[in-house]
């Protein structure tokens, strides 16, 4: 059986090209907007032009009579059909024990709109232009209400209130850690380092905008929803159990090719809800595709924190305690997982890579008249890392210690390590990644480069970021005890076909990550069959067993572990069948390189022969062994995984224009076992680009009235290739002990690590710590001017 020889196997660790790229590069990708259902009508949403208003009246009569209009639906029809509110699936309790204050979030406004872009009505028409024309003819009488768009003002006395259930706009006032122990640490401190940081609000901007097609089949009384989702089963569960569109068995959700998500496609939004519901109401498939302007208005944004923190140090620079007070913007409504981001995905990472005896964090989450805020690449962990790596850097500079030496002094060095904020770090070697990063970045040569840059009139700085994140989300019982409404395991089914090739049905979802390649590599190396004989099936609730989807860098650590479990079962059963075929004892059968052999003999069978016999079922007793070769598994992780590493950014600033050029960027990451180094590098590159985007250019800006100022790429700055150098990439490896493959996850590292590395470099170059993100050229130039004015005054 030539096909089964090991030479055709693609092992774990091979940098093979991505199988899916042929499809994408030749334009054969099938995205939701590429799909068309017979008789489909187009949906267009009339959105609120006001940040806060009461709808006195809404008259659709004239619009409904316009050419091509199929239907105009509003909150009234939604209520008539008893369609439930959109939900937030993670319960957070305040310090006083009260549950978080969840304001009603209907898919179409009932009587109040709470942000610019909020959904007022949907027009369904033959063409999109007709729908837009009709939307413009809907007469809405708004009573404009005062709005609050500024996070810092949301809790102020007399600030406009968004939801009656949430006095002073507070969703929850939550805390983590030991306050008394932390206060004691500060009482004993030799140095206290304070910091104030703003973590800027970001727009996710995946290249493919969101889209949905709802299609109701009256023959089966069943719905199909094609949608741009990172987790189609979860979308089905929420739309079924909470929103009440249809029972799960009558609702098929398909997430076909999806062009990037970065978290923004985890959530269940108003638009897909309305498309599914309306398709029954109007008796036509209903399609909606977001345009870029709508995406800026209503895709869930990321970050948006204001934080004051203090670090307590002993005389030698050892960290004694860390005290954090954060205000987190939730926007106008709680999005699907919004409440978990500034709490259990944030405060639990405040120990960073450091051995900190006492930590206390208080978080106020507040409503504002802005788009909802939820997970965006890194989700809470970038906010934690930015805070930790900035305050650690400032501490080192204040104590006049070398930045690397200060970190090294405080590193966690033995594992497992229990932090004071829930997490139990299972493995890592932080000094190893620091050492390698300093070497790759030529940290020792920096002073000479700085001097040389000064001769050219340039300000040069170098910044470190020793990040840690919690990925592989997450042990179900653990997250359940913290308020999650779901378990965070993953599922897999391995179907071996009679001819020996394999389909893997996974609950993970690929929207750029390359699962069709990496998952196939795993199966190829395990079963000893070529990678092209392995197909990965995902994204369709009618094909794939319930799964939890892809976010939080979990598909390797959790999704692939489920595949491993299923492969274990396949191998065990195939061995039983092989034993009968080879007339040997089951215990004597060995499986290696795609061969089932009898130990100590030269008798063997290829994998495909055994697979065929599993289905032919002539050579084993079917009373003992069922025919067929197909096994499923659910894998629940035993711990989070803890990718960590060191990123080093070196910048040069042009004082004439304030432009920051990143001249070197080094990333050394410990992702545990790496399946495909090429794909991992790609993930690191993309993550760094987004992190640099946050640090230097990206920022969502609302004006005082709650109008979105950065509503297009004319005003919202995205990172470009020319903003980035050729990266210096390195890996160190400590195997993750918490899953069978030893994987930690790599999808978010760059976005988590890069921002503080960039800002630490800029603050060093400028000689002031007061540099907020994004450090735009205009802002940097103003800082230089202020600094020169002070210097001149001193002369």
């Amino acid at each position: 059986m030539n096909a089964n020889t090991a030479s055709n196997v693609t092992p774990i660790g091979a940098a093979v090209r991505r199988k899916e790229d042929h499809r994408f590069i030749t334009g054969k990708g099938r995205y939701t907007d590429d799909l068309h259902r017979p008789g489909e009508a187009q949906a267009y949403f009339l959105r609120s032009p006001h940040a806060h208003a009461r709808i006195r009246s809404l008259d659709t009569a004239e619009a409904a009579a316009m050419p091509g209009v199929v239907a105009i639906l509003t909150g009234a029809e939604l209520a008539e059909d008893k369609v439930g509110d959109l939900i937030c699936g993670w319960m957070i309790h305040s310090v006083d024990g009260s549950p978080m204050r969840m304001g009603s979030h209907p898919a179409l406004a009932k009587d109040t709109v709470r942000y610019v872009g909020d959904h007022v009505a949907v027009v369904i028409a033959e063409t999109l232009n007709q729908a837009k024309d009709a939307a413009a003819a809907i007469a809405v009488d708004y009573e404009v209400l005062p709005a609050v768009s500024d996070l810092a003002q949301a809790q102020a006395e007399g600030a406009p209130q968004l939801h009656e259930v949430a006095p002073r706009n507070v969703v929850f006032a939550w805390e983590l850690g030991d306050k008394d122990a932390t206060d004691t640490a500060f009482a004993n401190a030799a140095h206290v380092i304070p910091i104030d940081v703003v973590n800027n609000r970001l727009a996710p901007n995946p290249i493919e905008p969101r889209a949905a097609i709802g299609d109701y089949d009256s023959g089966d009384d069943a719905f199909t929803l094609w949608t741009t989702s990172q987790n189609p089963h979860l979308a089905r569960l929420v739309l079924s159990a909470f929103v009440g569109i249809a029972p799960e068995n009558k609702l098929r959700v398909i997430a076909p090719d999806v062009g990037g998500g970065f978290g923004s496609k985890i959530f269940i939004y108003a638009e897909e809800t309305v498309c599914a519901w309306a398709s029954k109401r109007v008796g036509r498939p209903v399609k909606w595709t977001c345009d870029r302007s709508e995406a800026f208005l209503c895709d869930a944004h990321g970050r948006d924190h204001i934080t004051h923190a203090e670090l307590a140090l002993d005389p030698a620079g050892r960290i004694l305690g860390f005290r954090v007070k954060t205000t987190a913007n939730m926007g106008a409504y709680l999005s699907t997982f919004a409440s978990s981001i500034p709490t259990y995905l944030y405060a639990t990472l405040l120990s960073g890579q450091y051995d900190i005896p006492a930590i206390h964090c208080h978080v106020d989450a507040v409503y504002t008249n802005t788009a909802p805020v939820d997970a965006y690449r890194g989700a809470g962990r970038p906010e934690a890392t930015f805070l930790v790596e900035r305050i650690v850097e400032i501490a080192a500079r204040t104590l006049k210690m070398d930045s690397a030496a200060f970190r090294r002094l405080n590193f966690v060095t033995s594992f497992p390590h229990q932090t004071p904020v829930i997490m139990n770090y299972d493995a890592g070697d932080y000094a190893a990644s620091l050492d390698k990063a300093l070497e790759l970045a030529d940290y020792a040569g920096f002073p000479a480069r700085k001097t040389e840059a000064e001769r050219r009139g340039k300000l040069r700085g170098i910044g470190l970021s020793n990040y840690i994140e919690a990925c592989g989300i997450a042990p179900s019982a653990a997250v359940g005890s913290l308020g999650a409404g779901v378990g965070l395991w993953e599922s897999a089914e391995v179907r071996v076909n009679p001819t020996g090739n394999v389909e893997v049905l996974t609950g993970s979802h690929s929207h750029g990550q390359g699962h069709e390649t990496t998952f196939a590599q795993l199966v190829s190396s395990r079963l000893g069959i070529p990678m092209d004989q392995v197909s990965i099936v995902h994204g369709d609730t009618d094909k794939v067993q319930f799964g939890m989807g892809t976010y939080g860098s979990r598909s390797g650590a959790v999704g692939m572990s489920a595949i491993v479990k299923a492969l274990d079962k396949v191998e065990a059963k195939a061995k039983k069948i092989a034993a009968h075929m080879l007339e040997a004892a089951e215990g004597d059968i060995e499986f290696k390189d795609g061969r089932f052999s009898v130990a100590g003999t030269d008798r063997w069978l290829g994998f495909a022969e055994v697979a065929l016999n599993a289905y032919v079922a002539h050579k084993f007793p079917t009373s003992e062994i069922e025919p067929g070769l197909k096994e499923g598994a659910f894998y629940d992780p035993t711990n989070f995984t803890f990718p960590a590493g060191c990123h080093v950014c070196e910048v040069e600033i042009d004082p004439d224009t304030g432009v920051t050029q990143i001249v070197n960027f080094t990333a050394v990451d410990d992702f545990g076992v790496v399946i495909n180094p090429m794909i991992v590098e790609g993930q690191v590159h993309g993550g760094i680009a987004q992190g640099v985007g946050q640090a230097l250019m990206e920022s969502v800006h609302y004006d005082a009235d709650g109008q979105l100022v950065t509503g297009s790429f004319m005003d919202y700055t995205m990172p470009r290739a020319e903003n980035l150098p050729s990266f210096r990439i390195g890996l160190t490896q400590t195997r993750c002990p918490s899953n069978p493959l030893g994987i930690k996850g790599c999808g978010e590292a760059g976005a988590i690590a890069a921002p503080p590395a960039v800002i630490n470099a800029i603050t060093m170059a400028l000689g002031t710590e007061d540099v907020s993100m994004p450090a735009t050229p205009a802002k940097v130039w103003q800082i230089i001017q202020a600094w020169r004015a002070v210097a001149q005054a001193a002369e």
Partner: protein
Amino acid sequence: MYAFDYQRPSALDEAVALLRDLDEPKVLAGGQTLLPTLKQRLAQPGSLVDLSRIPGLSGIERRGEGLFIGAMARHAQVATSPLVQEVIPALAELAGMIGDPAVRNRGTLGGSIANNDPTADYPAACLGLGASIVTNARTLVADDFFTGLFETALGEDELVVGVEFPAPARAGYAKFRNPASRYAMAGAFVAQMADGVRVAITGAGQGGVFRWAEAEEALHADFRPESIAELTLDASDIMSDLHGSADYRAQLVKVMTLRALVAALR
């Protein structure tokens, strides 16, 4: 996009007549501003008059010491023209810095200057070189052509036919791109002409493209960076927005002027 009528005349006279007779017409040249505007329903013209089939509007030829460039010449055509590169290399460079390859292959000289976007590049070249704008009715000097933000001296039934560019002794262009949109946040065209130095600034002025008189005088006296090293541009007429204060833009104008000068001296 709203519905509109579409006309594609095959002669200049026909186009001018259409502009006179139609209800709320708009001229379509390369469409790189107009089409996105229409797609976003930010404009609702009654008709589009497409100039692409009118012959003879896209030539580039020597005229005296200088150049005549047809209104429908694409940016990419100007950027790569050996004649432009020989006679006014700074103009070819400027055209090569507009937008991205897609924009450069569709956008036109006439479209750019007739639109007179305050952050566009070509107005700086026209004003900086003291160009003459030739229309179907008359010839206007650049100083009289650009009248304000998105405003020109063009009449409602007047079309740009081409632009006459005098050849400078030396010229250079430098711009600072808006980090988001990549339009000019400050662009400076510096040209040493037979009758003096001209410095035209785009991207920064509240009223659109303008000449920086102090810099012109200083450079006329001595065409060296040192001449303008101590100058500062009065920021009171400079734009201020999310991307930068007036002070910052005034600084960028100065830095870009210096860089354009350095390019001219290369």
